[in-house]
């Protein structure tokens, strides 16, 4: 899905240098930053409301390089965040909360944290990101919890690691809430900065502007700095007027009765009335129209070459790829409580506008609908993130951090996850502190960043559960115990949250102890367990052992009066998972241990991969480009085969031994110079030499 922040470029940390350079005595050591400084206020963004075509292209255009809006006053900032999307908001909030004087530059203050695409937060893998950002002290989870229209837990039957909370959100309310938070945060100032332009593709009526505006946009300026840029494609479906849809023929989808929460902060756990989503399907007629008009789509018509996401395919992609499937599910999702827009999920298309309404009207329930806004596909610039370190600081320019769509990701959650990390790091950097790096195995956030800076991105990056190798350890229920201590140490978790966290952990551990010690025999509970699990129950079994049996959940303890009423539903779930899947968790941990000791070994920064003749040519090129920081990262670089890794490990070990040997020789030589030279040992040829 198209992400909220079309470009969240966080030029954090530069601010201080900037202000010094501009308004006080420029320090010579920062002079090299000067030419770049002029570029950062320029920002591009697609004003979605004016979209009217199926294909367009973002480009940046510069306004005259005046920095007046910063104010004549000698305001100085530690961190400047460019872009008020989901990454920008998290970054700005994190930086400001850590005490850095922060400036957030955005095009439109009312469109802060706007949701230009799907008005939803969470879903498989993305929900883990939201939980993790919240555990670190971020905002996205809280806002989603406050603004939800509907909440559902997906993948319930697929195991605790892939449970995914998804919330439909009210996008207006979401933006307003975020604005409120941003505006009320100390240390944080907001300015509107506007530079925006759109270059459009084939069938657009504002085409005339395309040629003339190719001057120094942000992208171009970054390119001049030696950053490599590339283009990606994404799309968003049409919106229809909710008042023109016949819901009586559609299958309603209600929210969960027991609402789940993204945030670990109980203050935002306020239930609200839920709205309904609806399910419809494509028909034979839909497929016919699309097949007849494929040549009109950018992808199949052949004039857009950027790579769209495979996992978020347009409806024409779906129909072309799954030819034997007669119908595809389409979800109708409200965009807010007080807006008429209905989001047609699963129906994004690159077909021209004139075909879109007839297409929508082939769907049951939408026969008489009116279209409020057409679907369109967009192309945008991104900077392949191998140019960033795992701290999200660019390798080229110290103090410049990238996060969000500029790194090639799609999705609000992915943006927020990067945003909080670059916000934290920008603040720490301006403070002269060490940078925070989340290891891949620590979290989905770590996995996301590791993938971004390591892998060769060919399509917009979306978080998926299968991207995490050890996801059983990275569940939503333990996001707080994984990351809140870090959030606390960094300084984003306040006293109140910390206390709540500690109490929760204590309750869980107490409960686990209790379940281990309490034994039951021959009671109703035992009989019930036997019935549900189909397994015999021995006399005086512990509650723990009962819970380990198949299909037994904590609820059964509650039912028979063996539960603990001090625990919340979520805490009970934590206990249940810890006990029930202990064996698997331990096994995964040992897998992880086995792998990690090797993977975390650092790679020397000055390795010359081109000199390693045992590596394949491709591996030499890719490794030289990405310059991985650890062995594990190297193994994940695209084009590096296991055989290459073997060769690399051997070269490293050989180097180490050679260096050791040389050192030894030098020491010996140093000693020898004092001693009269000895006769060198004659080469012995008497040994039997066996060899292959």
């Amino acid at each position, binding site marked *: 899905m198209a992400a909220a922040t079309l470009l969240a470029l966080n030029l954090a940390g530069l601010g201080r240098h900037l202000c010094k350079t501009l308004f006080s005595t420029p320090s010579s050591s920062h002079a090299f930053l000067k030419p770049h400084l002029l570029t950062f206020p320029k920002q591009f963004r697609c004003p979605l409301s004016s979209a009217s075509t199926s294909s367009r292209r973002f480009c940046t255009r510069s306004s005259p390089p005046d920095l007046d809006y910063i104010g004549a006053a000698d305001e100085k900032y530690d961190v400047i965040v460019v872009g008020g999307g989901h990454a920008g908001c998290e970054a700005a909030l994190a930086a400001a909360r850590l005490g850095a004087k922060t400036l957030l530059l955005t095009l439109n203050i009312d469109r802060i944290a706007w949701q230009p695409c799907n008005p939803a937060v969470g879903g498989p893998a993305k929900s883990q990101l939201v939980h993790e950002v919240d555990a670190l002290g971020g905002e996205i989870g809280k806002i989603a919890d406050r603004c939800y229209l509907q909440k559902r837990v997906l993948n319930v039957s697929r195991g605790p690691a892939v449970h995914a909370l998804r919330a439909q959100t009210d996008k207006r309310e979401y933006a307003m809430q975020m604005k409120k938070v941003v505006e009320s945060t100390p240390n944080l100032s907001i300015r509107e900065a506007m530079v925006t332009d759109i270059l459009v593709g084939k069938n657009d009526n504002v085409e005339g502007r395309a040629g003339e505006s190719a001057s120094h946009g942000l992208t171009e300026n970054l390119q001049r700095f030696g950053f490599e840029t590339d283009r990606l494609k994404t799309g968003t479906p049409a919106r229809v007027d909710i008042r023109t849809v016949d819901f009586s023929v559609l299958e309603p989808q209600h929210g969960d009765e027991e609402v789940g929460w993204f945030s670990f902060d109980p203050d935002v756990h306020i239930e609200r009335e839920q709205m309904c989503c609806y399910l419809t399907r494509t028909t034979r007629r839909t497929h016919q129209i699309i097949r007849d008009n494929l040549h009109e789509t950018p992808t199949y018509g052949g004039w857009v070459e950027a790579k769209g996401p495979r996992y978020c395919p347009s409806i024409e992609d779906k129909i072309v790829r799954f030819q034997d499937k007669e119908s595809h599910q389409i979800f109708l999702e409200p965009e807010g409580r007080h807006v008429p827009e209905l989001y047609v999920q699963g129906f994004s298309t690159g077909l021209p506008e004139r075909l879109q309404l007839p297409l929508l009207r082939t769907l049951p329930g939408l026969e008489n609908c009116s279209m409020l806004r057409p679907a369109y596909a967009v192309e945008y610039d991104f900077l392949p993130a191998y140019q960033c370190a795992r701290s999200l600081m660019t390798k080229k320019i110290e103090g410049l951090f990238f996060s969000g769509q500029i790194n090639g990701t799609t999705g609000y959650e992915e943006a927020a996850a990067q945003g909080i990390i670059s916000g934290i790091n920008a603040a720490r950097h301006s403070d002269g502190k060490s940078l925070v790096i989340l*290891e891949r195995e*620590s979290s989905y956030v770590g996995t996301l960043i590791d993938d971004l800076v390591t892998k060769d991105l060919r399509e917009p990056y979306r978080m998926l559960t299968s991207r995490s190798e050890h996801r059983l350890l990275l569940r939503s229920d333990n996001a707080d115990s994984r990351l809140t201590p870090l959030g606390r140490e960094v300084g984003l978790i306040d006293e109140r949250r910390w206390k709540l966290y500690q109490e929760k952990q204590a309750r869980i551990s107490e409960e686990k102890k209790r379940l281990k010690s309490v034994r039951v025999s021959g009671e109703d509970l035992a009989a019930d367990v036997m019935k549900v699990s189909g397994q015999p129950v021995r006399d005086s079994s512990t509650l723990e052992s009962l819970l380990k049996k198949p299909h037994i959940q904590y609820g059964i303890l509650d039912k028979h009066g063996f539960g603990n009423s001090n625990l919340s539903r979520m805490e009970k779930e934590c206990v249940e998972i810890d006990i029930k899947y202990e064996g698997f968790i331990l096994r995964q941990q040992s897998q992880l241990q086995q792998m990690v000791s090797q993977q975390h070994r650092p790679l020397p920064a000055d390795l010359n991969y081109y000199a390693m003749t045992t590596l394949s040519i491709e591996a030499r090129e890719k490794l030289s480009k990405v*310059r991985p920081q650890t062995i594990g990262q190297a193994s994940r670089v695209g084009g590096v085969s296991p055989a290459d890794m073997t060769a690399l490990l051997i070269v490293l070990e050989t180097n180490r031994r050679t260096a050791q040997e040389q050192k030894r020789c030098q020491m010996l030589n140093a000693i020898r110079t004092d001693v009269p030279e000895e006769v060198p040992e004659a080469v012995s040829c008497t040994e039997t030499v066996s060899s292959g």
Partner: protein
Amino acid sequence: MALEYFPALRHFLRRVCWFSQSPPSRPAIPLRLNLSFCTNCLLSSKSTSPISKVLKPRATSKENYTFFLNKDERFAEPVGAVHDLCRVQNTSTIAAIVTSLGGPPGAVGIVRLSGPSAVDIASRVFRPTRKRKKITWQPISHVVEHGMVLDTDGNVIDEVLVVPMLAPRSYTREDVIELQCHGSEVCLRRVLRTCLEAGARLAEPGEFTLRAFLNGRLDLSQAENVGRLITAKSVAAADAALAGIQGGFSSLVRSLRIQCIELLTEIEARLDFDDEMPPLDLNLLMDKIHTMSQEVQDALETANYDKLLQSGLQIAIVGRPNVGKSSLLNAWCKSERAIVTEIAGTTRDVIEASVTINGIPITLLDTAGIRDTDDIVEKIGVERSEAVAMGADLIIMTVSAVEGWTLEDTKLLERIQYNKRSVGSSTPAILVINKTDCAPGTEIGWTKVCSNFFSKHVFTCAVTGEGLQELERVVLEIVGLNSIPTGGRKWTVNQRQCEQLVRTKEALERLKASIEEKLPLDFWTIDLRDAALALGQISGEDMSEEVLSNIFSKFCIGK
């Protein structure tokens, strides 16, 4: 705090030393959320106050891991001196006599040179017979040349054939020159010495293979097999090692691993894109897992075979005096190894003879007939017989078909059983009913005797050789090799590979259990991943620390 800034200091020093011209920048030290931290957190719900423990070490613990932001790292062209290190191990040219020494001299012996200056060294010691216009000798790869080896003073040492194999078309993927000399040790040593004097270094044991491995010519399991091929004792062992080099086992492991990964992909795709995918076919899935598990099992069975190929099998032939033990031995090894007479108690000492069954080297031990005796020599013989019976891998107890099962046999059996019980061993035993030619039609009634102690019984006639094939078959069956198809699977599995195969098998078993218990889909991936990891370890595709250190302990690298 001091420690925390240590990397910063180092960084600073580096900057000052190496990049003094570039503007100084603020050092960045990573604060790392390391693994121990994350596992601690995972466990933290178990311990009461883990946080205080966790927080301290994080920023400071990984002083060995320092990550520097080097602005210039993409542009900075490495200086020559830095990357030369990568090549050090390849720069030396090694030489060794690669044919065996110590035995009677062969007609031809070979000195092999390998390394970048192999050609250079060879041209210094070798003078081709055919004169060329060019002054320096320029070998053509894979073309044999005749000539002389000269020592440093220009004296002819030997007349040789030179086989140049230039990189990368050689065993080590380096330039290789082989000098085929006359086979006597003196010749070979003089040629080698000349090569060493011309600049080569004496190769470490296994170094040619090591280079082949390092240069990517062999994978790990292939390299291991080279070692086994060289030390092979029997034809079958050599065949197995050769099959290993050619990659039969590697390809099986690779295919199993790919299957695991495919299944993993199938399952994981359903975690993320359930709507788009057809439902999983559970029966098909189970079938696949079952087949994989069976293949792993088959491979494991060859591990047993491998052990036998390497160490062989000892079979003790025991029995009362004069039941034809020595005749059996002679008939089996097809020679008059043991003295055979009509007199009971002829064999006094333990007699060894070697045979091979299906390529497995077998040592037959003929023993003195076990009986109570006053003869001192025979008494010692009997004691030895018992000792041998205890130590053998397999016992063949021989009885006479003419006399049938006698009281003495029962006594003898009890003695063996008693001995075995006392040491707690469980050596399998076969009952051989010999002399069937003298007592035809007595083949009934033995099954009852057999069932108690013997795994099998076989009727033989040592004089005609009848029943010996059956005996061999039974022996193979008992050591568990009957399932190895003759001529089928040639490669075998060594200890390291065996461990990982066992791990694979266990993971697959757990996976089956998870599916049967209807555990959620996500849990299936854990054991599947484990299986894939284990298989990856065998071929070296997933290199663990252990594999790496193993390689470096086997081969001497970096000398």
